[in-house]
């Protein structure tokens, strides 16, 4: 039986806080301001919200994060949940919001995520917190920082397909180029392939510039039915399809080190939407590391397995290329507040489909794919958004 939404659902508001170094605001404050900004975006009131979906926080631990946010803003909701899927949380929650609205359990759902891991934690504490998510018995004793999990994949991909460090660096260069057009981005100075390869080695083959940023920041999306969206200020962006799939929990248990469950989550989303990779005008791919982008290009069907290295060369994933990826600069250059990172891929997709992206607007953007990945290629969630109704 094919999965279908019985009602059309749209994203009607987006809101973002400043990102980068934001020392005056902690996680809950960032949530508050992001949700406020989203409500003001399309003229909704907080009383309209009856669903609240949030991420976790690394800088400030709350046992029931979604309820901490609900209490902070004094919201009254019928459904609240905190996703534990890491970077896949936000795309997963767009799917969940669509299910809640489609079933009639909720009318208006907020998907939000915010954290202050740059100013709320020391660099050492941030690295340590992230490394602590590895398996306590079979990984932690061996000293496995997060980049190493991804580096194991990169090394294997290079071994099987001849992918080069230069090809990985091309992703970082493209993200920084895009961030150069985005006044909100955390890092904007252009970098060359050479700059990436000469940057400090973190875990071979990944250099510092192959790795995402550590930033503060947050954002929120508001979803409602297409019918309700008609009464609101901004052009709705419709949810055409979504999917979710999981490869493993710990990378040491991965079956394959070059292909993961983004393939399955992508297939679900494309199938629900009745679309295929060639219909995608802008791809928002989870760029925790340069290798992550290559894997998604293959797994989501934008190029054959093993060919993402050549695919990202010659500007193909840049703004004017065949498949623009992350026009906002991604986790590599716009911002990565840890658990919330992927939410900006969603807000940027909405901006692109509304035609509001200014100098970094992808011309005639009608369909956007957004993909999120959590853990170390563990959890995967794909969303297809469209300007037109499904």
């Amino acid at each position, binding site marked *: 039986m094919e999965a279908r939404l019985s009602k059309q659902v749209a994203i009607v508001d987006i809101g973002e806080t400043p990102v980068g170094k934001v020392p005056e605001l902690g996680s809950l404050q960032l949530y508050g301001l992001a949700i406020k900004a989203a409500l003001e975006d399309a003229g909704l009131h907080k009383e309209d919200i009856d669903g609240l979906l949030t991420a976790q926080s690394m800088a400030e631990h709350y046992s029931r994060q979604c309820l901490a946010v609900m209490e902070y803003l004094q919201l009254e909701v019928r459904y609240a949940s905190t996703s534990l899927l890491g970077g896949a949380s936000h795309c997963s929650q767009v799917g969940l919001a669509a299910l809640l609205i489609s079933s009639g359990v909720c009318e208006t759902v907020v998907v939000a995520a915010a954290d202050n891991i740059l100013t709320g934690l020391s660099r*050492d504490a941030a*690295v*340590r917190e992230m*490394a602590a998510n590895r*398996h*306590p*018995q*079979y*990984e*932690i*004793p*061996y*000293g*496995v*920082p*997060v*980049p*190493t999990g991804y*580096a*194991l*994949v*990169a*090394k*294997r991909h290079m*071994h099987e397909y001849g992918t080069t460090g230069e090809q990985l660096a091309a992703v970082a260069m493209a993200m920084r180029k895009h961030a150069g057009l985005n006044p909100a981005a955390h890092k904007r100075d252009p970098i060359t392939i050479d700059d990436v390869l000469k940057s*400090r*080695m*973190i*875990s*071979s*083959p*990944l250099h510092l510039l192959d790795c995402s940023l550590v930033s503060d920041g947050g954002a929120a999306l508001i979803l409602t039915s297409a019918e309700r969206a008609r009464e609101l200020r901004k052009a709705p962006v419709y949810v055409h399809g979504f999917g979710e799939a999981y490869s493993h929990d710990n*990378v*040491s*248990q991965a079956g394959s*080190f070059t292909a993961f469950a983004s393939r399955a989550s992508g297939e679900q989303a494309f199938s629900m939407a009745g679309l295929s990779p060639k219909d995608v005008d802008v791809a928002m791919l989870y760029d925790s590391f340069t290798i992550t982008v290559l894997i998604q290009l293959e797994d989501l069907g934008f190029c054959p397995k093993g060919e993402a290295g050549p695919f990202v060369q010659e500007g193909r994933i840049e703004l004017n290329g065949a498949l623009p990826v992350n026009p906002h600069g991604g986790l590599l250059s716009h911002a990565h507040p840890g658990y919330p990172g992927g939410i900006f891929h969603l807000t940027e997709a909405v901006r692109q489909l509304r035609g509001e992206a200014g100098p970094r607007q992808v011309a005639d953007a009608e369909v956007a794919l957004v993909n999120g990945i959590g853990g170390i290629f563990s959890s995967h969630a794909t969303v297809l958004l469209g300007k037109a109704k499904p």
Partner: protein
Amino acid sequence: MSGYGKPVPPATKDSEAYWAATRDHRLLLQRCKQCQAYQFYPRVVCTRCLSTDLEWQESSGVGEVYTFSGVYRAPSKEFEGDVPYAVAIVELPEGVRLLSQIVGCPVDGVRIGMKVRVVFEDMGEAGALPKFAPA
């Protein structure tokens, strides 16, 4: 007693025998008596057929590097002194893979496909951590 100094694995009911054997420098793998499948890490059931009829078999510990990475920035203070070190996925002839470290050769000397043999690093009460050196 001078401390081992690094995070030790917290044994669970299903892994006590695994870690106990490492004290004697033995690498034990779980095998299902019902369907013959080997599995790592050890669990209370066979992941293939869900049988609880599992036994321990000693592995030769001779395997191959499936992938690896040289760690240049440690995840925490305890590992800073070891940087750079090679973390690897090692494939054993029983058909299981485990994450470990390659020791006894420089980090840039590690190769995918390299033959390696298990060695043990004593952790005190918690057992000995299986690592691999060129065979």
